[in-house]
């Protein structure tokens, strides 16, 4: 990733500085708990992470299947056929399971079966495309969650706006517990301007508590867990 140009440093608002100066707290002193609170993990490295992840992701409403590095494209083709999807957004990023080379190869095979693929993440594409295929930047077994970082290669909306999202997750990307994911993110960690933890499809239970998927984001989230 290219280093971003230095932004002009906005001044610290004087009203906030004055407020902070006068801010008094009457809350009783309590020491900050030790870091990391490892004893509070729900899932540890000793667990079968792939199995836990698959179970929790399904509980969150995802469709999960397991594939090898060689045969995941077959799974993708079957999913697209199953949803009768004719246009697919490919979002390759070499730090994920969907490398540029893999995306190129997949585009050729899909063209042969009449599925159009696109790489551009313009507004038009994001609003119109039938599905998106992406890798992920991390995954958490405890909650069956995916991590999605915004970057020049990966739009915030790529995993949000298409009605179907297919995500490739490498088994070696799994961390056991939410605590394992967050604890290393200390001061100075290189964090993107926006990132997301995705746990299942977009859903609501606002009307009489009835679960409906696909409110603003994808109504269907397929996860292909890639082994080896």
């Amino acid at each position, binding site marked *: 990733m*290219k280093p*971003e140009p230095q*932004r002009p*440093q*906005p001044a*610290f608002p004087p*009203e*906030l500085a004055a*407020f902070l100066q006068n*801010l*008094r*707290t*009457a*809350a*009783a002193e309590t*020491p900050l*708990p030790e870091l990391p*609170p490892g*004893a*509070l993990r*729900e899932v540890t490295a000793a667990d079968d992470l792939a199995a836990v992840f698959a179970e929790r992701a399904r509980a*969150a409403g995802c469709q999960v299947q397991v594939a090898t590095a060689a045969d995941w494209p077959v799974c993708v083709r079957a999913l697209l056929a199953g949803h009768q999807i004719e246009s697919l957004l490919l979002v390759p990023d070499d730090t994920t399971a969907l490398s540029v080379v893999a995306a190129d190869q997949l585009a050729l095979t899909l063209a042969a079966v009449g599925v159009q693929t696109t790489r551009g*993440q*313009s*507004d038009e594409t*994001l*609003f119109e495309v039938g599905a998106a295929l992406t890798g992920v930047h991390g995954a958490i077994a405890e*909650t069956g*969650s995916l991590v999605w970082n*915004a*970057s*020049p290669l990966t*739009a*915030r*909306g790529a995993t*949000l706006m298409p009605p179907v999202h297919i995500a490739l997750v490498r088994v070696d990307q799994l961390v056991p517990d*939410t605590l394992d994911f*967050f*604890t290393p993110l*200390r*001061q100075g960690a290189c964090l993107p*301007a*926006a*990132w*997301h*933890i*995705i*746990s299942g499809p*977009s*859903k*609501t*239970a*606002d*009307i*009489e*508590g*009835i679960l409906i998927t696909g*409110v*603003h*984001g994808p109504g269907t989230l397929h996860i292909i867990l890639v082994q080896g």
Partner: protein
Amino acid sequence: MSGPASFRQRTTTAAADTRVIQAVKRAAWRKVDARAQSLGRMRHAEALREQAAEIRRHTLAHLPEYLERFARNIAARGAQVHFASDAAAATRIICDLARERGLQLAVKGKSMTSEEVRLNDALEAAGVRTVETDLGEFIVQLDHDRPSHIITPIIHKDRQQVARALARELGCEYTEDPAEMTRIARRHLREIFRRCDLGITGVNFAVAETGTLCLLTNEGNGRMTTTRPRVHVALLGIEKVVPRMADLAVLLKLIARSSTGQPLGSYTTFVQGPRGPHDPDGPEELHVVILDNGRSRILAGPHPEVLACIRCGACLNACPVYRNIGGHAYKSVYPGPIGSLLMPLLEPGAHTELSRASSLCGACELACPVKIPIPELLVRLRRDYHARQPLAKRLGFRLWGLAMQWAGLYRLGQKLLRRGLPHDDADWITHGPGPLADWTQCRDLPRPAARSFRQQWEEGLRDEA
């Protein structure tokens, strides 16, 4: 008492609306069960609650430093930080931002803080069309209603009411199918998201060490609102800060489980700057409006613990009073047990009667992921309420207090009350005089016995036993 109708009148009316109360009870019990099952499956639920409570207490004890660290860190990432001392300042800052940039169509993620400052009214008055994008809040807005639960805004509506609002306001075909209604809302809001230029969200947590905003939604309204518009404004209450990402993880493990029973909501969104120069999407400007609006007074006052709240809504679902009167009877932005604490503290002199909206059963404290001692705090607030009561009532309670301390006085009181109070044939006092009328209005009082238990005990009950 505030408003034209007293709290007692409002609760009587609300409790009699069986259609609403049925809907509220069904939804609340479902969430109580979901929470219990979800936490019940955890290995360390109680240890996590203790840790979460310590994190929140520590943060409040050091709020000035953590808030400053957060503000400096997110400003260093290119966000513009503003400070609003009250609701008027917050709405002015946001309306000015819109006016200076010529922004005309605002989309909102679900935010109770924006409800607190009445942001929608201010934006509409400034000529900015403002559209709620959380499905529940969208329906509330279409129906010119108010949310009645901090997590489930339309907990008081059934599907027919939602269907009527959609058909009337959007001109679509009438349907009572929740899936179809959701699709109608999605299509409508997609067009809004295509054209919007201002996005407004609240903030669930702000991490001091990294300068990160954290936002939780299930529908994706938080993601759309922080992705599509040119300008994103986040409204942040000063108490929402946490020290480190690891602390956030502890709170994230509890908040959705307490709220809906999910390990995590569908989307946990993290924002710490505007889009980079090569990013394909995202707002060009990020503004963080840090809101006080009475919180600093609470922090320095006798009940700072209230600010530990992370707004999961578990205490509302657990509360027998909330379940039997619904959220609107509270006539406050934040209803339920936490609202009964927060509102009188946020707006001194108002909402004092809410401290009585509790049976002090303690279910709220047991449900609270950060262990706020809600019943104890409500009792403390009742002192403020009591101080505003009529003299006769205050004197009555003073006498009661004295009688409880002096046995002789208690016995004398018993005799006087037995003689002096009007009662029916079955020895019930149904219409007490003076300040007692307030009590006997909703429950009968037994007439003091001719011989008290103590007397009976001394005169022979003891031998029988």
